[in-house]
């Protein structure tokens, strides 16, 4: 199921086949295991579901969550309370409600944590874990003090049958996580883990991406807590102590729980290590010491157990893929530039005392390519940031197709203005295809994507992005945004990272973008050869002000431009 996408059959077929095989293995184990091992097996499944959740929030979305078992406690609480109240629906329904309740709490906790980078979320979640622990010890779970136990459904009353039920729940959870991760939701998790700016520029909401990862993770935590309750019959605060949540987090890191099979493997370790230590007469706390040391090693980038095992399993080629782009023979078709589609008036940005931009006017013609040039520090990248909504303090107006363009970067991207970044903002956890789909916010036909990738000399769609070199990644970013069919695409030095001889070839492709993709372009570029071959019109910035603006030849011949920016005429 981790293989590259090979059409609809493998997309849906392979995971389902794996699921069926897993059910069969579960049935086999049910027959083969004696009672005690079935009981341990339930513990493995319970831990696997919790780890699966951590895999989503920490593995995919890159946030540190230290209260996974507090969500488990919420699930356990709901199941216990419904059991005491003798609520209708039965155990499985309660289990689901427990998961949902934990998910809701997850969202509530996540809301204030939204603006937060990883570390603040870690502080919040550890705070919740500590507070919940003290409180649970004080008030206990419903039914524990009165001896009202949560009974398993009669059909799965013995350990072996209950184990099979747990396996089925785990498989359902794993399938849900798998399909979420393969879809746009999962791409947004990977994107937000790598760069919030990149996520917003792709028209995806950073808020939704973070919250949904947190909610899914909490829901899985809640379900695992509910299953644990019926395994033991009672929920006890000790099962959900902060120390265990910490250990589970470290285990998720060291086992690489963002991979489903590794979450299960981590869960096996979770149960097997203390069990073996017990048999050998070693204090079980050594288990956490081992997890802690391996966790430190994994966090320090020395590789985690999960990837190490996978590398052993199948040796993948690690050769990196790059750009293959050659000059065109024929002169590319051009559209006659039309009316302005993106109009910027009086744009000003100040950082403290520094005026980065003051009163900048410019217009991108429909079907044309506008170049923005200027020396370092002229405010070019600030301009792109302000237009695309990353600088809410910017003054002035931006109009896209005669409508004012306002709001945050996500909203602006959705209204048809896209941008790329100077630095690499392409998340490495995806394939080119998944990334392009994510950025395009649609599922463009495979041949359309393949043609666009080939046009820009990018590696094939199935290539994982972690094997693509920086220059090619930046072109993949361009292709993704073109597939979104925006009205205007802002390119911030797209050719940086390409070898110089490929700049011109890239420029020829870029020249065709309006005619081929129906997208008008604003490009910031240092390479004057590229600028000259691509841009109809130019705007020159100097110290945050427009120095000259107009048709390319006129602007480049302007003595003021020569003096202020170019300095030496021989560059022309």
């Amino acid at each position: 199921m981790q293989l590259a996408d090979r059409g609809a059959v493998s997309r849906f077929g392979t995971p389902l086949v794996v699921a069926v095989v897993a059910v069969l293995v579960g049935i086999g184990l049910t027959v083969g295991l004696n009672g005690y091992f079935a009981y341990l097996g339930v513990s493995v499944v319970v831990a696997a579901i919790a780890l699966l959740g951590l895999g989503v929030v920490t593995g995919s979305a890159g946030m540190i969550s230290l209260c996974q078992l507090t969500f488990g406690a919420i699930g356990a609480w709901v199941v216990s309370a419904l059991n005491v109240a003798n609520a209708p629906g039965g155990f499985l329904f309660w289990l689901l409600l427990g998961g949902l309740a934990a998910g809701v709490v997850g969202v509530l906790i996540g809301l204030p944590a939204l603006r937060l980078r990883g570390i603040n979320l870690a502080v919040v979640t550890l705070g919740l874990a500590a507070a919940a622990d003290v409180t649970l010890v004080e008030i206990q779970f419903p039914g524990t003090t009165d001896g009202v136990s949560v009974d398993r459904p009669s059909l799965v009353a013995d350990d072996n049958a209950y184990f099979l039920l747990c396996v089925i729940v785990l498989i359902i959870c794993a399938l849900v996580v798998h399909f979420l991760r393969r879809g746009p939701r999962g791409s947004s998790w990977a994107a937000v883990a790598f760069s919030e700016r990149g996520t917003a520029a792709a028209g995806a909401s950073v808020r939704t991406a973070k919250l949904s990862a947190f909610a899914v993770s909490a829901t899985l935590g809640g379900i695992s807590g509910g299953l644990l309750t019926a395994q033991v019959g009672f929920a006890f605060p000790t099962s959900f102590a902060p120390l265990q949540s910490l250990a589970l987090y470290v285990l998720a890191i060291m086992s690489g729980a963002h991979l489903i099979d590794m979450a299960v493997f981590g869960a096996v370790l979770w149960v097997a290590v203390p069990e073996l230590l017990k048999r050998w007469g070693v204090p079980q706390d050594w288990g956490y010491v081992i997890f802690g040391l391996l966790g430190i090693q994994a966090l320090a980038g020395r590789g985690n157990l999960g990837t190490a095992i996978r590398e052993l399993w199948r040796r993948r080629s690690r050769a990196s893929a790059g750009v293959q782009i050659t000059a065109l023979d024929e002169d590319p078709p051009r559209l006659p530039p039309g009316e302005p589609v993106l109009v910027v008036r009086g744009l000003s940005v100040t950082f403290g005392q520094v005026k980065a931009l003051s009163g900048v006017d410019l217009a991108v013609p429909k079907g044309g390519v506008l170049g923005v040039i200027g020396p370092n520090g002229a405010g070019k990248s600030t301009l792109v940031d302000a237009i695309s909504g990353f600088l809410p303090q910017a003054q002035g107006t931006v109009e896209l197709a005669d409508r004012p363009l306002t709001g945050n970067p996500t909203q602006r991207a959705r209204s048809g203005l896209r941008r790329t970044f100077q630095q690499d903002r392409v998340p490495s956890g995806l394939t080119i295809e998944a990334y392009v789909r994510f950025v395009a916010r649609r599922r463009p036909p495979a041949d359309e994507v393949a043609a666009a990738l080939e046009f820009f000399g990018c590696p094939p769609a199935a290539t994982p992005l972690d094997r693509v070199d920086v220059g090619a990644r930046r072109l993949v970013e361009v292709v993704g945004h073109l597939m979104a069919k925006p009205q205007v695409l802002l390119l911030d030095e797209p050719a940086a990272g390409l070898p110089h001889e490929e700049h011109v070839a890239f420029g020829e492709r870029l020249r065709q973008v309006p005619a081929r993709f129906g997208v008008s372009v604003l490009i910031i570029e240092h390479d004057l050869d590229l600028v000259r071959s691509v841009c109809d019109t130019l705007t020159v910035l100097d110290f945050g002000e427009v120095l000259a603006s107009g048709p390319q030849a006129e602007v480049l011949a302007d003595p003021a431009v020569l003096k202020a920016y170019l300095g030496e005429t021989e560059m022309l």
Partner: protein
Amino acid sequence: MVQGALAGLAAGGLYAVLAVCLTLMSRLVRVVNFAQAATGMFGSYVGVALSVHGGLPEWLAVVLGVLLGGLLSVLIGWVVSTWLAEAGTGTRSAVTVAVLLLLISLSFILFGNKPQPFQALLAGPAFTVGGVVISQVTVVTVALAVVIAFAARLILTKTPVGISLRALSERPTTAELLGIPAKRLSAAVWGATGLISTVIIVIVAPSQSNDATSLAMLVVPAAAAALLGGFRRLDLAVVGGLVLGMLQGALAQVDQLSVVRNFVPFLAIVGLLVWSQRKEVWDAAR
């Protein structure tokens, strides 16, 4: 209520000292150290063990315990700054989560999971204000918090070492190229905060619930306090710690509010974050 608040001042001083350590670490070595309190816990436990089981004189055992706390912190710092020199604050801090787990588990193995027989270094009242007794522990913790915050501020703004440290935290690679001994300086920061944390926990532990987990989890209220200063301002970290301790003390007077009291640090964290993050900020510079 006032009585409770003043009684909570001892805990407040403890939170404030730990919050100052967290703030210094965050500013100077780009780490939110989740193992801050755990390091102190471990050092002080070793001190107790040396005195109770090792038969060392108490003062010597305490000194050795404190030194060990500092040393342990240096060791963690060495791992972080060697293996994760270029990593972001998030990853560097995540390592300390693993260290927190490690230290709690190790203390269970070495000392069992029962609270330790701490000998009170300071006992008895210092003075009374309006009928409320202020203990010596309160006076010392609050004074320590203020003194350490002041001293740290003076060192950072007025001494060459402080200026190097600030350069180091703002631009680590550039600072190193300028010939600032990055490794030694960050080891010094780790060591100093480790020593301070251990000292404060040795002083306060006899009057606290002092099992390993409770002591290690002191990092939560300390983080809440440090958040008031945004992990950057030392004075606000001290204020945050004192206020939090007094608030908890005041709430402890009302039995019905005991559950609320448990959640005070958490609610403070959430509240402060919502307030301080109300302005939209993006993750990377550009």
